[in-house]
């Protein structure tokens, strides 16, 4: 594989993410990894559900009083939109339009960062109420589940930013196209997990 091959929109392969053997390997390997991540998050969800509202005797926090739905709604919208913007980025990658791809990735990163900001605010808010990590089994399980998702957001952001910076000068080629594609997949997966978090943790928490 030669990094110096210059492509035009005409010569750019339709499926640049798996046009090379390395790309194919990365593509399959990453999907397998996502299969494993599904089980990882399932274990966290299962633990959260088992420990929901469980604490030391006289525990004052319950999901119904704690959670702030408006905040969660804004976060959900931010993350859902960022999922669409990364689809746009991949659309432009397919058309070999590097500039637009970078622009849409930039929007994705900004939306992701905004999401993260709200999450930090939310956690900080809970901690100030006395709902700290060590407060109860419930708090440990909540922070670990939602925090692990947050950590994935951080990793996803770092990954996309690093890819954008590294390739800003040299544009698209068949070496980095699979990497962009996988970063986008990862970002969608983060959204998939969030759909379950807002449903199972927050909405079902507020219902009681």
């Amino acid at each position, binding site marked *: 594989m030669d*990094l110096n091959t210059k492509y035009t929109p005409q010569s750019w392969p339709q499926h640049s993410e798996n046009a090379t053997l390395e790309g194919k390997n990365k593509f399959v390997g990453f999907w397998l990894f996502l299969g494993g991540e599904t089980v990882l998050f399932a274990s966290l969800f299962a*633990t959260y559900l088992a420990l929901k509202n469980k604490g030391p005797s006289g525990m004052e926090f319950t999901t119904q009083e704690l959670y702030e739905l408006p905040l969660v709604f804004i976060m959900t919208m931010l993350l859902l939109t960022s999922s669409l913007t990364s689809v746009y980025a991949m659309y432009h990658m397919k058309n070999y339009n590097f500039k637009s791809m970078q622009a849409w990735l930039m929007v994705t990163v900004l939306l992701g960062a905004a999401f993260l900001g709200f999450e930090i605010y939310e956690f900080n808010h809970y901690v100030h109420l006395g709902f700290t990590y060590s407060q109860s089994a419930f708090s440990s399980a909540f922070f670990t589940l939602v925090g692990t998702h947050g950590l994935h957001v951080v990793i996803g952001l770092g990954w996309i930013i690093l890819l954008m910076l590294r390739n800003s000068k040299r544009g698209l080629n068949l070496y980095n196209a699979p990497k962009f594609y996988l970063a986008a997949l990862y970002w969608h997966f983060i959204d998939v997990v969030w759909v379950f978090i807002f449903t199972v943790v927050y909405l079902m928490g507020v219902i009681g």
Partner: protein
Amino acid sequence: MSSIAQKKGFGATIWDYLTTVDHKKIAILYLISGGFFFIVGGIEAMLIRIQLAQPDNDFISAGFYNQILTMHGTTMIFLAAMPLLFAFMNAVVPLQIGARDVAFPFLNSLGFWMFFFGGIFLNLSWFMGGAPDAGWTSYASLSLASPGHGIDFYALGLQISGGGTLIAGINFLVTIINMRAPGMTYMRMPLFTWSTFVASALILFAFPPLTVGLFFMIFDRMFGANFFDHTMGGNTIIWEHLFWIFGHPEVYILILPAFGIFSEIFATFSRKRLFGYSAMVFATVLIGFLGFMVWVHHMFTVGMGPTANAIFAVATMAIAVPTGVKIFNWLLTMWGGSIKFTTAMLYAVGFIPTFVAGGVTGIMQAAAPLDYQLHDSYFIVAHFHYVIVGGVVLGLLAGLHFYWPLMFNTMLNETLGKLTFWLFFIGFHLTFFIQHFLGLLGMPRRVFTYGANQGWDLYNAISSFGAIFMAIGVAILVANIFMTISKNQAVGNDPWGDGRTLEWAIPQPVPFYNFKQTPLVRGLDTFWIEKQEGNKEGMLYAEPISDIHMPNNSIIPFVMSFGLFVGAFGALFNGEKSWAIPVLILGLIITFIAMGTRSLKDDLGYHIHKEDLMDTKGGKH
């Protein structure tokens, strides 16, 4: 061992192995470190048997006994059996499917070094205030109460090495899915490749729950979380579930590749095609599937109620069906074959009755009411040693003799090999058969000593006596290995004369690019087919000789794993030493810098040119 290694200086060889991304060298690294940990775990086992040889013994203290017992189990499962299996997977699978390397050579190296540093970290506990002492299952109610840092070493060490295992699992899956030579369809894959495939899939889904469980343990013990603390609303049963959701598939992760090795050996030394190939494949996949449905049978006595127990009892018994299919297929492979009793074949033949015995006791325990009687007794100890030693360890020893010529181009001494087999086999049955009866007589497991005159004295003495045979057997094996290395007598390819699969067709020593030309596979047992048709080269080619793309060596995996190793010390001493958090951060920074270097620096590998391949030396080095 290879001529290349001798020409280089010692330092250069070390550097070569630290940076290698070649699956054949990584296999050797796995073999050496897995072998080392196997010896360590074996010494721990001998200490256990010495302590239990007579009643009211005070050879070692109760606390120390707990540590030895925990480390024996943990070491043998995570640091000996799995790496040794990875050694054979690495050495054999890419060659068996006609690939030049694994799908992710860099990750292959990273997986090894993470396992290695995790194992070292775990064993450093011996020198830093005491090893873990809550059993290899480390049930939360015990481990949260354990003083000192033993459990912390356990949780962090397994976390690091578990990450390495997960990486290795994904790597093998992708290798088998994407890198098969033309014509190597799924239903033409040798059974060792198939069992590696299924075991890797189990790794992919079984290790995340362990990761989560270990993180809970780490957070509970070191960072103030309350997952398992019932006074804070936690629940210790959560650990048991997470551990066994991992733990039960884990035993299939161990046994399936061993089944694969035996399948190859039976076919080779019976000079017959494996009987019922497609049934074998189906049984392997079915065992993998059912492996996820049965973990609760480890927890029958927890008190989950008759419904849960009944469901999992039935599911457990169902596993006997595909396993039985395999046993009969092996027997029928031998039936009417012209059998050669090599050392590997002896192990394979010895494995069948041993494993059947272990399987039968397994079905006994699957009956929940009987399990209430057997639980936590020596009957359980006897059962899992029959399946793990009688299945996995015999498989590893068989594989060692069988694949040694493939890995090193020399042959282990057959006479000494057979001696090892008989000593080990007799010793094994002496040690563990009698433990069934100890269990039925009521001796509980995990006790450091017992009172005299309960009818257990003689049986324990016999059991310890048998262990001596096993130790002598292993000692002879080690001597055999050293003798073989010092003699260094090249044997060439297909040393058994009856090799059936692609790995035996490659010229020895295997070139570092494996195949000059990608082979064309025309059926199951490719090499056998070509030999039958009088093809001297042993394979057909799917492409003309052309440039070969190879990955570059890299020290980054080593540095990345070392960073995690350093960081683990920080986590371990969190809240106790002032330097803990800085060290944790330092370790993570080392890892992240290594990761950053990896992602910022393009590593495109290099090409071996066609002209270099044409000359006899075959390219670089």
